[in-house]
């Protein structure tokens, strides 16, 4: 019996867009407002969860052809890597460095290694959640 999901899928398009934007926003604002790598990552992954729910695995994987295990590993690598990076510069392990830069579009911006660290966190979260869900569902 075919189940018609047109309404859901249409709404999802907008909703996922909102969620993704919100997730990125949360991730970026983490340093000064609620949010950060974890929550950003979790929100992003909840967008993926929604996609999986509304569509099916094959469709989603066709749309986003990544190996999420690798993404998770990359995230973990980034997180550990920032630590090693600071160690290489002769600082204490996991010392975060920050600097102010003037970028063409954004103007005065603060860039920090925390951002890399948080990006690692977010990537891992996304990678792991998606890996778990897709692995379980594939095992039917």
């Amino acid at each position, binding site marked *: 019996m*075919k*189940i018609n999901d047109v309404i*859901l899928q249409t709404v999802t398009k907008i*909703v996922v867009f*909102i*969620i993704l934007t*919100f997730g990125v926003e*949360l991730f970026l604002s983490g340093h000064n*407002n*609620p*949010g950060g790598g974890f929550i950003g990552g979790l*929100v992003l992954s*909840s967008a993926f*969860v*929604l996609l*999986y*729910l*509304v*569509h*099916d*695995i*094959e*469709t989603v994987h066709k749309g986003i052809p990544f190996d999420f295990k690798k993404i998770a590993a990359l995230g973990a690598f980034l997180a550990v890597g920032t630590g090693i990076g600071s160690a290489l510069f002769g600082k204490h392990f996991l010392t975060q460095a920050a600097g102010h830069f003037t970028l063409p579009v954004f103007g005065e911006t603060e860039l920090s290694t925390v951002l890399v660290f948080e990006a690692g966190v977010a990537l891992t979260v996304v990678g792991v959640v998606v890996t778990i*869900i*897709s692995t*379980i*569902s*594939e095992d*039917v």
Partner: protein
Amino acid sequence: MIETMMTISLVLFSITISIAVLRIILGPSMPDRVIALDMVGVNLIAMIAVVSIMLKTKAFLEVILILGILSFIGTIAFSKSIERGVIVERKRDR
């Protein structure tokens, strides 16, 4: 004045949540419960909005949006689970 109104509405929302929990327990069918859970979520959103007014902070506004998103996702998941058992299919429409 505003303070009192806020407190009253908080209590009202809490009553709603309690009733929804009652519905979850009573059932009788699974969709009843899911709807009630949805309602809990929605009312929590409202409560958080009120709380953030009372605390005079903007820190919780994110939570409102998140809860909105999540209760939606939760409801979809539950309804799919009730409807089809499996909530994420490998391939749609086999």
